[in-house]
């Protein structure tokens, strides 16, 4: 909004008195205390403790505002909003990642770092969960609610701070402007402030157990949530911050894709990943505000208290409102991954993309159908007559999802597929997502669903789609683009070895969970009948292997970023626009004007898809 300011003097940097992140924490503490005490001051019921549930909510708002202002929002957003120029210029070196930035590449890296860190924390929780499940009784966690909280925090963080964020806020922010030949985004400040909501939300969710263990898992089912200790409040608030962040990304990237495409990037030429981000942004824009308001209602149910979702309200209403968002959410997670397959495969295969329009139509129809299937999560509690439409749409949504396979399979036929790590991981991801998708067909059939719903069969199914589909593709995309992000190349041996490790760990762990579910293992249990122990024990061993593999990938990518051998600008011989510029790209993305004259996915044409006219 504050784009139209120019400063006459050369920009100067007033040194902040302390590092922005540190100042963010300090201001957050101040913000919390001020609003907390203000709430206590008007509390009509004296004699409460210093922090009550209501003051914790209002104080949290103050804390988040303080945090956002502290990391640079005061200088970067608030002052310009009131017409005062921003006294800061971007910090040099690595410090620029630790303050508010308006450069989409910096923001993208910030999102990736936040997401990766969260993935590590939530993954560690998963290891704790699996360690607990090695024995049929409580032996690692002391109380069952600790286990349930671990499950809830794991799920919440993975969905809202990794699944929704890594490919969209992270790679989307970094790559989309590059891939459409833009020099920046439409709302850089919005996007910059958006990132810093992620650490705020993540910390809120991580520390929520300090206010009491909450037991609902990532879905916050009512009326259980109303009955839980106060920790559940910080689940609502953490999710609010994280979803707000994704909303910022969605507005910014959607507007950027529509208005900042360079000359020649027509809709017919728009890269697939950009299509993926555009469809996902629309999903985000519709459904994230929906879940935010649902959580506000849940919060009011608890704080006032109202009776929207308990026995004298309607628990089913909450379930519907939750899944109305919740099912599109899983497509928010996987649609960019499906798009990435067909971004990476043609480059690795050096072969023209097969059926491009089918791949795009698939993404769009998945987006449109995703809002019509939510109640298949509720076959166990819906009216009989409602089963028909929801099972119908659920079965139908596999058709457009299949179009991504159609395009990938057509492209691979008779190609010269280069089995570099990204290529290998994409193939693995296709296999995993195939398993996830086909087991989804079983779940779409209500009689089968009624047996396996809420069992480990479902746990396995969605981990196959989310880890197998999205996380594997995320790792593939990191290897594919790390030369662009850093100008350096990873080590092929380690990349492939670690890819095989996570493939074995993943399939070993989650394929057996299907059998566990069919054999009577239900979800959210720190203890289970002893006959299920042997397979659970094996699952845990494979899960530890998977965890170790992810840590290995993290270390390897970090090593690449810092020490990897320097690589040319276009190591894969790709045709999309991000390969047209230097690695890493300059601040303005391209040294000159981009003109696109051909298709990005035609490898039968020798002429490059675009030319870069150097500045006069």
């Amino acid at each position: 909004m504050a784009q139209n300011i120019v400063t006459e003097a050369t920009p100067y940097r007033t040194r902040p008195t302390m590092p922005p992140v540190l100042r963010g924490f300090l201001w957050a503490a101040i913000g919390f205390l001020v609003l907390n005490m203000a709430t206590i001051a008007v509390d009509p019921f004296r004699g409460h403790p210093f922090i009550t549930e209501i003051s914790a909510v209002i104080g949290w708002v103050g804390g988040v505002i303080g945090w956002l202002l502290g990391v640079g929002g005061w200088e970067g957003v608030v002052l310009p909003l009131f017409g005062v120029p921003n006294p800061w210029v971007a910090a040099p070196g690595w410090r620029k990642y630790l303050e508010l930035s308006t450069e989409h590449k910096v923001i993208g890296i910030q999102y990736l770092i936040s997401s990766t860190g969260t993935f590590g924390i939530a993954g560690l929780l998963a290891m704790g969960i699996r360690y607990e499940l090695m024995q049929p009784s409580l032996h690692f966690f002391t109380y069952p609610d600790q286990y349930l909280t671990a499950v809830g925090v794991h799920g919440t963080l993975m969905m809202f701070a990794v699944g929704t964020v890594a490919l969209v806020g992270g790679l989307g922010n970094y790559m989309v402007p590059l891939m459409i030949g833009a020099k920046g985004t439409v709302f850089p400040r919005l996007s910059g402030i958006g990132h810093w909501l992620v650490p705020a939300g993540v910390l809120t969710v991580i520390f929520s157990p300090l206010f009491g263990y909450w037991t609902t898992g990532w879905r916050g089912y009512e009326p259980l949530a109303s009955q839980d200790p106060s920790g559940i409040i910080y689940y609502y608030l953490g999710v609010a911050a994280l979803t707000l962040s994704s909303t910022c990304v969605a507005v910014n990237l959607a507007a950027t894709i529509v208005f900042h495409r360079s000359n020649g990037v027509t809709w017919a030429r728009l890269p697939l990943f950009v299509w993926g981000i555009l469809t996902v942004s629309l999903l985000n824009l519709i459904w994230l505000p929906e879940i935010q308001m649902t959580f506000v209602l849940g919060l009011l149910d608890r704080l006032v208290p109202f009776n929207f979702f308990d026995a004298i309200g309607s628990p089913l209403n909450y379930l519907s409102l939750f899944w109305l968002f919740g099912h599109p959410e899983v497509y928010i997670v996987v649609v960019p991954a499906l798009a990435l397959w067909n971004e990476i495969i043609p480059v690795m295969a050096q072969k023209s993309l097969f059926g491009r329009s089918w791949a795009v139509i698939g993404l769009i129809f998945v987006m449109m159908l995703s809002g019509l299937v939510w109640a298949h999560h509720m076959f166990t509690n819906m009216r009989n007559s409602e089963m028909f439409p929801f099972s119908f749409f659920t079965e139908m949504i596999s058709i457009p999802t299949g179009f991504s396979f159609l395009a990938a399979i057509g492209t691979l036929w008779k190609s010269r597929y280069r089995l570099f790590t990204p290529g290998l991981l994409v193939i693995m991801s296709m296999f995993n997502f195939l398993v996830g998708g086909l087991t989804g067909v079983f779940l779409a059939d209500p009689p089968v669903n009624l047996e396996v719903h809420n069992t480990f069969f479902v746990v396995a199914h969605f981990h196959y789609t989310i880890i197998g589909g999205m996380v594997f593709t995320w790792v593939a995309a990191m290897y594919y683009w790390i030369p662009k992000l850093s100008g350096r190349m990873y080590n092929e041996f380690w990349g492939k070895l670690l890819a095989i490790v996570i493939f074995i760990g993943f399939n070993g762990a989650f394929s057996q969970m299907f059998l566990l579910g069919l054999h009577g293992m239900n979800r959210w249990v720190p203890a289970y009948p002893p006959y299920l122990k042997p397979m659970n024990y094996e699952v845990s061993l494979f899960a530890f292997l998977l965890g170790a593999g992810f840590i290995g990938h993290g270390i390897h990518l970090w090593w690449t970023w810092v020490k990897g051998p320097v690589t040319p600008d276009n190591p894969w011989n790709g045709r999309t626009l991000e390969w047209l510029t230097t690695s890493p790209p300059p601040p303005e993305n391209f040294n000159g004007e981009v003109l696109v004259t051909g298709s990005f996915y035609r490898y039968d044409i020798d002429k490059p898809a675009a030319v870069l006219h150097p500045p006069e």
Partner: protein
Amino acid sequence: MGVEAVPINPRELRGYRFGLVLFLFTQAVPFVVLYAVEYYFDAFYISPATNQWLGAVEVLLMILAWTTGRSGLAAMRHNNLSGLISGFRQSLVLGLANLVVLGYQWGTRFVPPGTRYGEIFYTVSGVTGFYTLVGLFVVLAISIRAGRLRFTSENCWDAEAAMYFVTFSLLTNVVTYLFLYWI
């Protein structure tokens, strides 16, 4: 200040407009949720305890706030900066008056909060009031910014943007009024 406004190129301007409208459309979603919940629990029931007059006054104030803001923006199109600022400031005061009336209604608790209708009433009017407050903050910020940056008729996107917010507040106020007091 060492700062001056420069014209935005038309393509960029279209991007801003599109983005902001998109954002406001998404912010209609929470209201759809609220109205749906209202319909679910209350259908067409209106509590006889509601004060119809105060509800109408709230909407009237919001309409006035929108009108004055609009006239401020019209003045800006004729390069009348002080007209813009005074229009926005009046709009701000009228909007605050709307919130004061809402606060009075809450304070007196004409509608008992422990009832089905009461839950809906406080939730829906509270969320509407919150969005109104955000809109007023934007109006305040832009009225200050307009003076500092010396907006011109070619370069007053920010004022236009503020009016988008006020329009959104007006719409939500009207629809909320209809749902809470009429249907």
